[in-house]
Every structure is written in C-alpha cells, then in structure tokens.
C-alpha cells in the first residue's frame, strides 16, 4: 500500500506524541534515580582546578571544593583551629631565621604515588615564584633555600612573617603533585587534576557539575560518601528548588526566609553557623570623616541587633571590632554601644543636627551579600534621626575593589571581610594598615600601631597589639564593624552535616545520618 503524505503526517505526529510521552512519563522515574551518594548544590562555578594561581585561588567560596580535592600544608578544624595536614609538625627556630616542616608519611596522590617532601618543596617554590601568578606570592616568597632531610623540610626565612604557617591553611596553601604536574603541564592538569585530598575528580562539566569519587587511600580515612556530585547552581532560587525537589541533598547560602521554610519541611533539616565573614562599613579619611565626632556618631547611632533581628531574621552576631569570637584577637571588652543620644551630642559639638545634618555618601553592593542594600537603607534611616544625611550609591563588587585599590572610596562604604584563619593580621591588619591596597583609613596612628606587628615574633605580644589596635578603632570610630554572618545550610535528614566556621562546605565532613 502506498504511503500518502497524510499517512506520513499522521505517523509523524504519533511518533512525536510517543516521544513526548516517553520523556514525560517513562523517563520521569530516572530523574530520581540515585546518581551519587551525595549531591550538593554549590553557589558558585569552579573556574579552574589549580588552587594556587589566578582569580579563583583567592575566592573564599571555592575553597571548599579545593579542600575536597587537595590537601593543604596544614589543615583546619571546623572551629578554625589548626591541625596537621600534609605537614604533621612545623615551626620556627629560636631566632626565626629558619623553619622546619615534617611531611606526613603514608599520604598518597590520587594516582597512587606517595606525597613526598619534594612535592612540598616544589609547591612552596612554585608558590613563591612571581611568574606563576600566585596571588599570595608575597607570603610564599618570604621563605627559600629549601633542604630535605628524610621527611623533614627546612627553609631559610628571608623575611619573618608571623602568619606564615596560618597561610599554609589558607588561600593558595595547597600541596601540588610535582611529578604529575611536570609531566602533564598546566593544561593537562586542568583537564585531569590530581590531588591528595579526600576526593578524586571523576568528571567535570564546566558551569554544570563536578563528579567526585572517594580517595580510599586517604590518610585521614576514606570519606563516608563514596560518590559526590557538586552541582554548580549560582542562582539562589534554583538552589532552593534543588533541595525542595529532592534532586540535591545539601544546599547552602539561601535566604533566611527560605531556610526557615525548608528546615520545617518533612525530610529536611537545617543548621546555621556563624562563619568568618563579617559585614562592616569602611570609613575613608576624607571629609567629613576626618571629624572624629562625625565618625563616632555614625557608629553609635546604628542599632546592629535591630538590623540582625529585622533584616536577617535573627541570623547574625553583633560585632564591635573586626574580630569575631572565633578569631585569635577577639576581645569582648571592646564594646561600641548603641547610643543615639550620645551621637546627637557628638554631632552637636561639631555643629550638626537634624536641621543641619552632616552630609556624605555611602556606597554599597545590592544582593552581593544577604540584605546588604536593605541594611544600608536601614542604617541611613537611623543616621537621619541623629543628624546624618547619607546618600546611597549602589555599585558592583568589582567597582568596590577598584575604588579601594585606588583609595577613592566614598566617605563610607559597606563591605564584607572574610578571614577563615582568624588571624588579626588578615583582618584588622590588612583592612586598616594604610599602605595595604585593601585599607581605606590611612591615618598615621594606625600605621604606627600596626606596622611593628607585621614582624612581631612574640605571638602573645602580637595578638595583644592587635587587640589594642581594635580598641583604638572603636574609640576613634575608624571603621564600623556591624555583624558576623551566619551561614544557613539545609540538608536531607539522611545526611549528617558538620558545618565549618570558615564557611567551606566540605563533603568530607558529611556522613550518612544515623
């Protein structure tokens, strides 16, 4: 029987209908098939695998992925305290001219070869070479002249850096495989990265997912979840949908409203942890902020707890210095009170009032951090009541970096500062030391106070020095610390999640519940 055009169209339509039914009917159950032991919806994409060079090396959000694949020289507990990593022992000699590091025995790369002292030396030398593009080269370049004796690596100290070993648990402080990297080169490494961390890279689809499998020979013990998929889901509403639909078992960095809703759902749990990110307002040493009364009035008139309660649903910790309670230089005795009456008095002393307000600009991002713009709007409202009229300028975070590097920020600028090693040098030090490209207040008194602390060998004296700096900042209103952020994590009740104060979401710290 000849096939007519009408027949062909009918059969074609039937075929399309069949395919549609197949995709929407038969295929549906496969969407729920267990593809891995654990699926995490991450909030960022992973640009590059090499954790020691380029932009992503200094992106705090990506460190959790790097720490799953690579080992750091020195590890970090969830409470930010240091623990052995690839190095089991480390320290200075008495006059701080040499360091010694003992390399762990029994650690292996994902290809099965052992992690050696040569790997550690090569990694440190590469990190200290300015031509490799390591953004933290300014730290790593302070040691050199490495020598190996058995499992102990020694090095000469070219310039004393008190935080050297803390950096070994921080940005770019990762041990890389010398032999493998030299064999495959940078491109080969990106295509098939090899680390010594708890998970091996199985597959990577840029902007989509990273598939990991357990490194069974991991020195810290094999991971509980043998297969992990990290989905890159930068859109917060899509991350909510991921956990809501059961397609991911762990999500984080969602709105607090969604966190409260999701954790109340059957089959889901939630945990919030104060992390090492703080919200603050930089004060620039330009008019009218050169007037101490104005600075202090701006500081005293902000009800931080109200911001936390009303805007962040109570998820936040009020801070009065650039240190959070987990940081080594946290001093609870330094307090900046909420005192709007005092603010009015101070402004009056400088000739300002609600009828004749002091005027300046405050810059902020919108949506870069939770309720950033709303927080500044609320603060501007609080300021208005005491005699401060601030104009809000919204900019992108990239613009903030540019303005800060060129010291051209407005008199006040909102920012979030992360410091997952909790050292005061990497918070107060870099934020308030005039010559640092990240500082905004360039006053000489800060330079004089912080300057000697960079090379201070006595740790107690160094920490005490930073506490004094923080007290001075509070007394003079040189910056306005606002709050410590709280990280919301929602997860399936079949998973046990251990959050980390660093904010890194680590599959290695997760295990099946019960």
């Amino acid at each position: 029987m000849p096939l007519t055009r009408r027949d062909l169209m009918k059969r074609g339509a039937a075929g399309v209908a069949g395919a549609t039914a197949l995709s929407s009917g038969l295929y549906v159950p496969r969407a729920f098939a267990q593809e891995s032991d654990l699926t995490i919806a991450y909030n960022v994409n992973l640009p590059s695998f090499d954790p020691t060079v380029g932009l992503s090396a200094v992106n705090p959000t990506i460190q959790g992925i790097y720490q799953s694949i690579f080992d750091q020289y020195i590890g970090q507990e969830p409470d930010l305290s240091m623990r052995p990593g690839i190095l089991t022992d480390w320290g200075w000699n008495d006059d701080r001219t040499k360091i010694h590091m003992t390399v762990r025995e029994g650690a292996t790369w994902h290809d099965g070869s052992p992690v050696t002292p040569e790997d550690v030396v090569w990694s440190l030398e590469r990190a200290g070479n300015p031509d490799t593009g390591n953004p933290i080269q300014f730290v790593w370049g302070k040691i050199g002249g490495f020598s190996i004796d058995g499992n102990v690596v020694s090095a000469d100290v070219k310039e004393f850096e008190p935080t050297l070993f803390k950096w070994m648990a921080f940005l770019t402080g990762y041990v890389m495989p010398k032999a493998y990297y030299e064999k495959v080169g940078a491109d080969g490494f990106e295509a098939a990265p090899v680390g010594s961390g708890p998970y091996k890279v199985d597959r990577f689809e840029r902007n989509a997912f990273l598939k990991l499998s357990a490194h069974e020979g991991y020195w810290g013990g094999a991971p509980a979840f043998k297969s992990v998929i990290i989905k890159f889901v930068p859109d917060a509403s899509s991350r909510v949908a991921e956990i809501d639909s059961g397609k991911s078992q762990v999500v984080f960095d969602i709105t607090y409203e969604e966190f409260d809703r999701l954790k109340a759902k059957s089959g889901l749990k939630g945990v919030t942890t104060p992390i090492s990110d703080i919200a603050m307002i930089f004060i620039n040493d330009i008019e009218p902020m050169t007037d101490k009364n104005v600075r202090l009035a701006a500081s005293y008139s902000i009800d931080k707890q109200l911001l936390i309660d009303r805007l962040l649903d109570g998820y936040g910790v009020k801070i009065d210095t650039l240190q959070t309670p987990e940081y080594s230089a946290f001093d609870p005795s330094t307090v900046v009170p909420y005192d709007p009456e005092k603010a009015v008095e101070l402004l009056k002393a400088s000739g300002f009032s609600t009828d004749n307000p002091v005027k300046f600009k405050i810059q902020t991002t919108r949506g870069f951090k939770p309720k950033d713009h709303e927080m500044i709007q609320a603060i501007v409202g609080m300021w208005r009541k005491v005699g401060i009229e601030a104009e809000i300028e919204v900019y992108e975070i990239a613009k903030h970096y540019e303005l800060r590097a060129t010291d051209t920020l407005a008199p006040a600028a909102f920012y979030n500062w992360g410091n997952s090693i909790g050292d005061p040098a990497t918070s107060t030090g870099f934020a308030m030391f005039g010559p640092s490209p990240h500082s905004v207040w360039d006053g000489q008194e800060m330079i004089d106070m912080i300057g000697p602390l960079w090379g201070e060998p006595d740790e107690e004296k160094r920490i005490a020095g930073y506490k004094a700096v923080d007290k001075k900042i509070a007394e003079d209103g040189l910056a306005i610390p606002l709050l410590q952020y709280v990280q919301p994590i929602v997860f399936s009740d079949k998973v046990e999640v251990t959050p980390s104060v660093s904010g890194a979401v680590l599959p290695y710290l997760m295990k099946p519940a019960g």
Partner: protein
Amino acid sequence: MTALRAILTRALMTAITLFGVAVIVFVVIRVAPGDPIAMMLPPGASDDDIAHLRALYGLDKSIVQQFFIWLGNVLQGDFGTSISIRQPVSRIVLNRLPATLELSLLAMTIAVLFGGALAFFATRFRETPAETGVDIINGIALSVPDFLWGLALILLLGVAWPVFEISGRISPSLDPQFSTQFYLLESILRLRLDVTLDLLDHMLMPALALALPLAAVIAQLLKVSLKETMNQDYVMLARTKGFSESHVISHDAFRNALLPTLTLTGIQLTFLIGGTVIIERLFSYEGLGNLAIDAVINRDLPLIQGIVLLFAILFVGINLAVDLLYTVLNPRLRHG
C-alpha cells in the same frame, strides 16, 4: 554580476559591523567599572606586585596598544587567554557554543511549532471565542518575561510536579564520550536514545521558558498575516474548488503568510540567543550565557570580548541566513 556585487557588499558590511562591535566592546569593558587586577590583589600587595600582575595579564599597556595587540591576535585566531579560567578563550567559547546553539534551536523549534499551531487554530476558528482564547494566551505569554517563565516552570515542573531536571545539561551519570559538543544532535545521529532523552529532560524547561514569548510573537504575526492572505483571490479559488478550510489554510495561505513572519522570527532568534544569558544561569545550563555572567563577575576581559564577538558573529550570520532564506522563499526576489 549584480549578485556578486551584492554578496561582496554584504561581506564588507559584515566585516565593518564586526570590527565596530570589536572596538565598542573593547573600549566599553575597559572603561566600565571594575578592574580584574584589583579583584585578585593579595592583601599585602605592594605597588611592584600590582605592576607585575598587570604586566602578567597584558593590562599594563594603553587601551589603544592593548586593542591592536588583541585585534592582531584575533585575526590570527588567538582570542587571548581567560584570566579566570586560564585557558585559551577560543577553546572555552567554542566548547560552550554548541550547548547554547542547541538550546536556542530547540527553543526556536518549540516557538515555531507552538506559535504556528496557535496561529493556525486562531485562523481556522477566526471571529469565534477560540480566537479570543488564542489572543489571551498570546497576551499572557508575551507579558511574562522569559526568566519569570523559567522560575514558574521550575516551581511547576521541577518542584510541584517534578517532571524535568532543574539544573545542568546532562546527568552526571551519563558520560556520552561524543566527538563533538553538539550532544543533542550527535545523540540523535548515533541513535543514543538514552542520551537524547536525558538531554531533553534537562533542556525542555529552559527551552520552553525561552520559547513562550517568541511563540506568542510568531502566533500573533502569523495570525494577522494569515487573515490577510485568507481574503486573497487564489484562496477564494481554492475554497470554490471545495477544499476544507483547514486544507486551504495549510496548503494555500500558509506559504505566503509565512514570509513576514520568517523575517521577524530571524530577528527574534537573535533576541532569543541573548535571552539564554539569564535562562542558562537560572537553569545552571553549561552554555555561553552562563559563562558570560561569570566572565562579567570576574571582569575576565579577554573572555568577555571573545563571548561578545562570538555572539556578534552569530547575530550577523543569522541575519544573513534569514535574508538568503527570504530570497529563496519570495518568488519576486528570487526571479527579480
């Protein structure tokens, strides 16, 4: 000779357009706020460190010098190296382009089928409540932007009635080992039904979100065009021959009504590809759009330039293809 001149003129115009795009993009992204070096500055960086980083990424020269160095390299096929991904830009964008093209073409197919069907239905039942119903559907589809359709689809077909995947392009459990990045096309050609269905599972929601507003535009324009055509003499003749109304629409009116729609659809395709930027982000789809947002966030200047130039080439190519197709389909142009 006239045709050759027309082709040469068109080619010259294309080259001028692309050069213009290259200049504008290069200048705009350099004067726009945000310095990539400032974003990667270590806390203790000295002026020397900053200068070293600038030199490392070729940003220490004047904008004019940077432009001509970049243009010279582009003409040799070298689009530079991505600052954030640290791989050749050409490799990165060409790897991601097929994903965006497949998504766009799937969306376009859905839009054409859906819009065409609506127009056909409204014409067949013109001046009845059914036509009003189609107008209402069109109005809704047009008034909601694609990213809101995306969110609505995620809530409806991803969460409430979880039929489709919410994120990605292919399931991590599937490693097709294809020789190209045109996964959908290659899976069909290789008869890998498992991969095809998995891809559709991931692509249908973003494609639908992109397609709905365009489908409404197509439906509206085609409906108007069909209505006009239905009053032409040759259509009346067909009716008098005793053909059914559906037959008359599909066999006699459709082809001539298609021409104005085709031109607009071609232009709309470029908007649709532009729409992939937000939709790909929403659905974590691994295409050029998603990549573009990261490139902008990271102020990855070489990558932004590469992506925008590629988009420009695509747009110019699509417009050229539409012109050619219009010539083929329009007998007056074909024979004149």
